[in-house]
């Protein structure tokens, strides 16, 4: 089983390396947010001192964790898209006929996708550091497991979505109905207290959004702090989404059985 695991992880890394434009696109998006939107929003949005921060911070510093989570979210969706593409092109059959348990195959895919997400985030954090948007040094180490966990959660969500999406063309809908609401209805760009003041109904949605907890886990980890509530949410959602994706890829119980043809 370990040989199969290694094969799947190596394949995902090779595919990532072969798709250089994917890597660039993954970096350009958060960098645009950081340097262009960040500059604009800084003037409009005042931030008070809220945990984990112990002093006033620049708006750009505030949005770095959210942008890291955004990188992971987009990578998870990219991975999900590639699963749908593989199914349409037929190469998914190879994976699903491997003589190893299906949960093991999906877990290997998930871990590979999370690993690629962490690599992308590391490059993003290095670029931010070069432009003087810096976190405590120890935070750069502490954030790696947090990013990996977030990668597992969002990757599992992507796996589940890929089992439900029947056609590649339908994927554009995912962008509108999953990625953007998840990102904007979270604490990635603005703190919860500001939303509770100005739009309490939206704030009540934000507290139920798993992406909010992904962002907060990363934010606290960057300051070498553990947000237990966020950790529990992320772990629980990872398990939930993974179980749903196992159901989604079960040839006997799900819609997938009727898609393999």
């Amino acid at each position, binding site marked *: *089983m370990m*040989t*199969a695991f*290694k*094969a*799947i992880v*190596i*394949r995902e890394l*090779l*595919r990532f390396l*072969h*798709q250089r434009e994917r890597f660039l696109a993954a970096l350009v998006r958060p960098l645009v947010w950081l340097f262009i939107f960040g500059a604009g929003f800084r003037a409009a949005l005042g931030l008070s001192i809220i945990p984990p921060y112990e002093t006033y911070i620049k708006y750009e510093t505030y949005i770095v964790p959210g942008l890291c989570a955004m990188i992971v979210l987009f990578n998870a969706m990219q991975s999900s898209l590639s699963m749908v593409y*593989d199914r349409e*092109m*037929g*190469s*998914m*059959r*190879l*994976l*699903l*006929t*491997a*003589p*190893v*348990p*299906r949960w093991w195959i999906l877990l290997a895919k998930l871990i590979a996708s999370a690993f690629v997400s962490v690599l992308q985030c590391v490059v993003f954090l290095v670029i931010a550091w070069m432009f003087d948007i810096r976190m405590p040094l120890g935070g750069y180490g502490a954030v790696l497991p947090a990013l990996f966990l977030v990668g597992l959660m969002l990757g599992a969500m992507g796996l589940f979505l890929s089992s439900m999406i029947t056609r590649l063309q339908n994927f554009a809908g995912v962008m509108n109905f999953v990625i953007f609401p998840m990102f904007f209805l979270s604490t990635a760009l603005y703190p919860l207290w500001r939303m509770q003041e100005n739009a309490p109904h939206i704030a009540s949605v934000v507290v139920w959004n798993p992406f909010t907890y992904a962002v907060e886990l990363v934010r606290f980890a960057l300051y070498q702090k553990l947000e237990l509530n966020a950790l529990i949410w992320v772990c629980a959602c990872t398990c939930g989404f993974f179980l749903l994706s196992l159901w989604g890829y*079960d*040839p*006997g119980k799900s819609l997938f*059985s*009727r898609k*393999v*043809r």
Partner: protein
Amino acid sequence: MTDAVTLDAVDLSYGPRSVLSQFTLRLAPGSFTALLGPNGAGKSTVFNLIAGLLRPDSGEVRVMGKSTSHSRAGLRHVGMVFQQSALDLELSVVQNLRYFAGLHGMKNPNSEIERLLAQLGLEGREGSSVRDLNGGHRRRLEIARALLPSPEILLLDEPTSGLDPASKQAIVDAVHAMSAQGVTVLWITHLLDELWPEDDVIVMQAGQVVSRGSFAELGGAKGLSEHYAGHERPQL
């Protein structure tokens, strides 16, 4: 002796449409069985059931005596060539084969990969991207991949489509030779010139077996052509 493949009273439907009804099939170890039938007869569904890509609504599918519903271990013995290409276009020829070898738990596949690439006329293309291969070479690579884990069972769904006549004949001969050495073969095709007189032939229609016998017993290419003509005459 345990059958290599068993489908026992299998029912399967896609929504309200029944595709297989009480379908039973047994493949003896080392047999060469050709599965024929018009489009939509259920041939690829049989393939997908054996491959574990579909689970029957009722009945049981066993590979090497093990139910595919309960264990995927039986698939270790199975090599497959799908009707639709299952290659990863992002990877090279050798990366595709190494990936597949890894999925099948092969730790040092390089010498076997070299041997198969030479056997199938793909030497010198190891580093080529699959995207750059023509249809015939892609098909050869699919066959190399199926043979890589030294399978005891070979499932081939129209394996020679896209091959030139010489390559096609070489594949047909090689697979028959493997069958003679004990590999169980299920060969789905519409091309009757790929069959040998002693091959076991099953003709399917609407999810049922309508004839079974050796190619010679069923009248060879002429007899089976007439059989086909009776079942499938496209309205143009």
